[in-house]
């Protein structure tokens, strides 16, 4: 009888500690796109890699939580967050007022400008509305670049694509006169054999903050202020302890964080 009691006690104690351990080892599910190299990309064997992924891992280490990653099409990434498919979006999402109505954002974790690319033999001289009048511009939909292009290039035909690789393929095919995207994403593509057709045409100037926002932030469901605060503290921490710079230098020759805002 006494032995049985002892075993039962030991077992329940073990269960209790296990429960506590599990509570501490909370897993956070991170949603990302996987079609936006070098920020996030799915490799041929199904691994998610890129700047966003490394930053997210560093933040999770900092916050002492276990993180798993989920790849999700860009179009549906906010609804998927709201539906609880994951807990945070780390996918180079620009902090814009329209999105901020649906999700809560952290501070920015990087900020790079928007740019246009065109074939090397293009006759285009610049990136103003007049330069692109009558031309066809390709942009990935549901992006700040798309919002900017459709508001600015009102005399051009704007074609919407599900993600960056499609718009790049169509520029190389010759269906488009130009594409607009993040300058880092464009530069990376131009360095590949597929991008050899084309060059950077220029960066729109000025880049209105009401369209592009202050930079890319991490999105969480509305009202999860604790999580936002944890992420913000972690961003500040990796900025301070050199981890951010280490990841930055792994991918880029320049500082993607941009100016302090």
């Amino acid at each position, binding site marked *: 009888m006494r032995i049985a009691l002892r075993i039962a006690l030991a077992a329940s104690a073990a269960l209790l500690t296990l429960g506590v351990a599990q509570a501490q080892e909370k897993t956070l599910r991170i949603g990302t796109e996987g079609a936006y190299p070098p920020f996030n990309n799915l490799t041929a064997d199904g691994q998610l890699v890129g700047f966003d992924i490394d930053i997210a891992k560093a933040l999770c280490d900092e916050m002492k939580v276990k993180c798993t990653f989920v790849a999700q099409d860009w*179009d549906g990434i906010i*609804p998927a967050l709201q539906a609880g498919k994951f807990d945070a979006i780390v996918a180079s999402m620009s902090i814009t007022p*329209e999105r901020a109505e*649906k999700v809560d954002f952290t501070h920015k974790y990087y900020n790079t400008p928007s740019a246009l690319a065109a074939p090397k033999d293009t006759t285009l001289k610049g990136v103003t509305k007049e330069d692109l009048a009558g031309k066809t511009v390709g942009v990935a*939909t549901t992006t700040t670049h798309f919002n900017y292009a459709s508001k600015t290039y009102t005399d051009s035909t704007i074609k919407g694509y599900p993600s960056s690789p499609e718009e790049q*393929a169509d520029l190389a*095919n*010759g*269906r488009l006169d130009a594409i607009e995207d993040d300058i880092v994403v464009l530069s990376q593509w131009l360095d590949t054999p597929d991008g050899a057709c084309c060059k950077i045409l220029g960066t729109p100037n000025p880049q209105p903050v009401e369209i592009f926002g202050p930079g890319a932030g991490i999105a969480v469901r509305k009202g999860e202020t604790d999580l936002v605060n944890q992420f913000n503290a972690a961003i500040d921490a990796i900025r301070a302890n050199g981890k951010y710079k280490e990841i930055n230098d792994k991918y880029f020759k320049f500082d993607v964080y941009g100016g302090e805002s």
Partner: protein
Amino acid sequence: MSVTAAIVERPPPQARGWPRSRIIGYALVSLWIAFGLGIVAYLVFAWNAEFFAKYAPAYLKGLEVTLSLVAISMVLGAILSVPVAYGRMSKNPVLSGLAYCYVYFFRGTPLLVQTFLVYYGLGSFRPELQTIGLWWFFREAFYCGVFAFALNTAAYQAEILRGAIESVPRGQWEGAASLGLHKLQTLRKIILPQALIVALRPYGNELILMIKASAIVAIITVYDLMGQAKLAFANSFDIQAYIWVAIVYLVMVEILRHAIEWIERRITIHLKR
């Protein structure tokens, strides 16, 4: 004989009271009704005049694109299906082999894949297409969509046509031949009128399937109904964008369904007693 004739098979008598299957049936139907009412209630509750004013014109434009895409593809497909159906019924092994492979490929692969192959696949052969002077056609996403859809539906329509023609008994051909009718005359005046009654329903189904499948062109940058819905969603992050588009598709399909039923009632009037 008279004894067996007296035993008429009747349907089983109506079940009385509340057997389990009836309870389950009522429960499921009321679940669906509740679901439908829920959507209606949501739309009334979430009614957003601003959203409607902003995007309704775009939806109408998208509807126009969808309808013209499907109409053009269906007509081109119908024309193309005639030689394919002829090939399928031909005794010439080369012809029937070619037609078989065509139908096999287009019915065996997803329309999405075919559309991608035409748009991005052929798109990468621009220099070659330019030399033969076809680039102007394949440059436009809408034409690429029409091209892929027409080829796809031609395969299905060829099978519908073949099945319908083969469903007419051989005796009809033989009877016409004994009256001295030419083969083409037989086909036009005797076989096809009977075959097309059989083919009407499958044709209607194919049309409905095409309308729904046409949403695929939204991902090759055509702003059809679905493309406009995606755009509206991208700008508003409001799920209404997709609910409305579903309702528009539903209304289209419902109208078509009734139209086809009406046509069928008209053309089978002589078969009813």
